[in-house]
């Protein structure tokens, strides 16, 4: 997962530009010097990590009532081979959901997920067909959390503009699912990304629903460089007028060894994650 940080004013301008589908002339410096797919491929190559470990605090805020829910989450991810990946995440708080977890395997094109419900001590395999479903009540869908799927999207560079917070120049990339079916699977007709030209990190993503209306906006801020890789320590997903989700990364390790056991079913079944 890659997170980038724009400035507020640039974000607003970008939001206006992106949502109106109009590239504001004063901000448009030049046409793209690279093709969209190439840019995203390069991003994947540059920013991918073999393993990732994060401790996150998730805050879900209802826009109207302003009420917040906080959750502590631990996440592990591994990419044993190209196009294969495994991840596990589980909640440490609040107490009512402590130990609830999700295990995902993507291997040889097949996807499997298991949900662990600690109260009934059951690891239940769940159908992973609904990638457009929201993850655990947040505003991130399962598809969002997977990161960019280069095989299932077509990326087109629409132009360039100044990145938020004077972070340099950014590509404006339009990401469209390769077909109608994929569009329906992820629940978006398209996404507009603001990708830093230099660092190839994504500062912002605007998501458009199947009707073409703006659905939500993700901003990636508080970027930290870990080795050659960049990661945002704060991601904010704003589901306009409905809810906001803040994902704050409290600690992170990249490319450090992780025990394979963590990605096994018994890790959750035996409640090793709790212990």
């Amino acid at each position, binding site marked *: 997962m890659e997170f980038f940080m724009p400035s507020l004013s640039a974000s607003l301008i970008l939001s206006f530009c992106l949502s109106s589908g109009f590239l504001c002339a004063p901000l448009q410096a030049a046409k793209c010097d690279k093709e969209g797919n190439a840019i995203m491929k390069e991003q994947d190559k540059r920013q991918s990590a073999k393993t990732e470990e994060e401790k996150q605090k998730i805050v879900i805020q209802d826009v*109207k009532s302003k009420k917040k829910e906080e959750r502590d989450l631990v996440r592990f991810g591994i990419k044993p081979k190209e196009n294969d990946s495994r991840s596990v995440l589980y909640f440490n708080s609040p107490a009512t959901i402590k130990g609830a977890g999700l295990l995902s395997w993507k291997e040889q094109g097949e996807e499997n997920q298991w949900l662990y419900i600690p*109260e009934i001590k059951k690891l239940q395999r769940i159908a992973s*067909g609904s990638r457009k479903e929201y993850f655990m009540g947040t505003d991130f869908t399962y598809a969002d959390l997977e990161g960019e799927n280069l095989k299932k999207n077509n990326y087109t560079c629409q132009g360039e503009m100044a990145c938020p917070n004077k972070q340099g120049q950014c590509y404006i990339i339009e990401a469209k699912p390769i077909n109608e079916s994929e569009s329906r699977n992820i629940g978006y007709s398209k996404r507009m990304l603001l990708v830093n030209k230099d660092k190839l990190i994504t500062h912002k993503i605007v998501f458009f629903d199947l009707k073409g209306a703006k659905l939500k906006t993700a901003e990636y801020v508080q970027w930290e460089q870990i080795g050659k890789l960049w990661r945002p320590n704060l991601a904010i997903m704003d589901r306009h007028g409905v809810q906001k989700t803040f994902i704050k990364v409290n600690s992170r390790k990249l490319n450090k060894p992780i025990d394979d056991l963590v990605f096994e079913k018994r890790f959750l079944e035996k409640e090793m994650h709790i212990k």
Partner: protein
Amino acid sequence: MTYSSRGGAEELTLTLYEATSDELIFKSSDMPFLRGQVHYKNKSYQVTLKDSPHEERQRGFYTFELEAGQELYVTLLKELDAEELTRWILEIPLDKSEQEEPQHHHLEELPLKRGAIAHTLEAILVTLYHKPWLSALLLILLSLFPAYQLKNISVDPSLDRVLVQDSPLMKQYKKSLELFGSDKSAILYFKDKDLFQKEKLEKLRAFAWKLQKEDKIARVRSVFTTTFMRYEKEEDTLFTEPLFQDLDISSELLAKRLKHVQKDPNLHGRLIDVPQKTLVFVLELNHHNKTMVPIAELLNSEVKKFKEDFSESFQTGEPTIELFQKEEMAESPKIFMPLITLVLLICFVFFLGSSFAFIITLLATLLSTAWAFGWMTYMNIPIQMMVNLVPGILLTLSATEIVHIASSLKVAKENHFSDVDSLRYLARDIGKALFLTLSTTALGFLSIRFSEIKILQEFSVVASLGLIFAFIITILYIPLHLRLFPYKKKSGSQGHALFKGFEKYFIRLTYQFLFSKKALLPLLAFLMLNTYFATQVEVDNDTFRMIANRAQVKKNLNTFKERMGGMKSIHAVLSFKDSTGEQDHKMTDAKNLKHLWKLHQELEKYKEVKHIESFAGLIAILNREMREGKEEYYKVPNSQNLISQYFIMLSRDDVDPLLSADKLKTNIKISHDLSSSKRTEVFIKKLEKHLERFTKDTPFKFHLTSRNILNIHAANTIISSQSASLITMGLVIVVLISLFFKSLQAGLLSLLPNLFPIFGLFGIMGLLNIPLNVGTCVVAAITIGIAADDTIHLFARYFRDKETSLNPLTASRLTIGDEVVPILTTSLSLALSFSFFSFARFIPLMQFGLLSAYVLLLAVISDLYLGPVLLSRYFLFKEGNSNFIKWMLIDQKTLKEGQVFHNLSTAEVDTILALSRVTFKRENSQGLFIPLKNSSVDIYIHLPTDKESHLSPRTFEKICHNLKTLNLY
């Protein structure tokens, strides 16, 4: 031949010197007046005198005094039954007078008073006659603004207009929309014996996905798009994806899934019926959509494409009703207005003998409609289902007035007045009445403004404006018309003769009965029966019931209701009694959820309930499927942790319609199929009681909301506003009529003829189970408008005739004679025209037409009978009677054989009668009051004290003796 009366000191000798089939011409003897019977050729006739050179010629009956040798022309009337006393009052030989050359009067000779209104109207008409260009110019200028506005005219068939907009219930409803989404939905129904074949499912799936992209649709609920939580044992997997998201499955798996889905109450019976091989799409609409018509049109065109693929496929639900209304609003005028216009043309020409009234009616209707719609557009009022009735209403009420105008002009022409003098005559004859009818009718329609329902408020404004414009247009146009097409008096039409025949034979036959006390019984019975049935009238604002069964839209609604049902819903919104937030509780707390699950199960037991959807139900399903589908787990778990863990699994799309984001409110959707407002209201009361019991011992409070509830509320306001409207109209009529005739009694007397049709209206509605809805509730206002129009003309005519005629009964007879043609012309032609609406597919329109036709016919009775009878009775009571009435009313044969005149000779009785006057009450005067108990009316013979001396002592002694014996002295 000489004829002498028998007996008595007073004798009449007549010399017959000419006889025709119905007339004997006698020469008189030296009698002061004529009474008694004449026998000629063994037949008996009552006799009245037709003419006298000593009396000014007046219409109707005459009293007179003869001098000896004076010639009398006696017209023989038909042979009378002794009991039919008053009948011959009506047998004025107008046939003969009508066959004569009409009298030519000068305008000023006519006893027509000219008040301020008549004066003003006369000035306007005469000025416009002399300056026809001014008429044309004013008509054009006044048309400019509305014509300009018409380009912005809009149509709004939205069902929201039948709701009360500014009410606490509406505010509550809107809040609930923001929290839980809309309850407006369109429904698509597909049925086929091979429905679950892959090819057909793929087509429907593609269609569902396409609909998800439609802006006006907030959510598509179908087996292709809605979460179907199930545990599949073979794969040991919990699925949450829609049932038919993936169609690349084996037939065995498909069969298993179809079996499994029958356990899910949120899907089976709602979105799928496996045994019936039916699939349903429920399209929840964006609640910001102003009207559902565009989506209904879109869906209709889309569903048509599936006609070949499925044995049944159609759209149903509220959008189709709005679309139907829009189509009816466009089509009905095209069908009915030409029919009505044609009928009016035929009737007017047939009954009035000219097209004058028709042309002016048509012009006034067309132009006033255009002006009213133009102004309406300016006021941002769209054409809606009630405003659509305005042209028909303007046609009715304009016709009523213009027929009176035409009749008045006809009379003027019979007097050979010039066109200018005809206009003057018109102003003086009926000017005041015209203004009065306009005022009462316009105010009557404005009284509908009391309604809280937007559609009726708008209707009242447009109808009132239209009426005022129709009056203005008529006044402006008539002088112009007379200049362009000078009025030529035509001979009486066949219809006219028909009405006169009706008047002569039927009204005369029945009038006496109505005048008698015996008529009170049927009248009271009519009023009481109708009052009883009126109490059975229900209100109904159910939009589903506003469509005739033969319309395809209704057939689809009924099909869906029979096979799937649950199209209507009531939402029970629960929140916490403690709203301060001090107690940190949520609907997702285990304890609270347990209460909600219990409520869910209790509500499911009501027979009216088709389906319950609640957050507790959702958790129960998830709990069951997480436990491998075991039924014993179909319940809310006790563990708070488990509930929280389940909760994070749910998607917001599934939860949002049932639980607010802050978890402090929950929405329980109660689906049902109750069709009438009354039955729904009964059910709502049951629910309220249940919820009151439930919330008593729980931390919850509740309120019920939904469009259903708003419809019921609007229905109930119809009653209160209808009552307010009727009371206001009644007061307006009494006040205005009292003011105009300077008589409170006149105002009060006018109530019964105006209310008579109202009794009949509500009585027939109760008897035939016709509900009070947005269509029928305006019929009462129109009823009073029509009845008041004719009553006012009748009263105006009566008061005038009363001044010139000898007695109240004669005045009523004359009034009927003058009014029968216009009243019957308008009433019959309009009743026939309105009856065409019985073919309408929009039920309130159909009911409006039939009830209006019925009311028009009742108005004939009240105008031609009740009004004159009441007036005559009143004045007879008030004023007593003249000697002439004595001859008419008293059954002399019965009188002479009665106990009062026992032992008195005919001559003695005749003498007493001659010296007496007849009165209808015992007065505080000196003299003998002799009651005539056998008469059909209460009559006393009053022999004043000063007249007693004229009797022989013996005669006086006899009569006193009889009265003492009968305890009457």
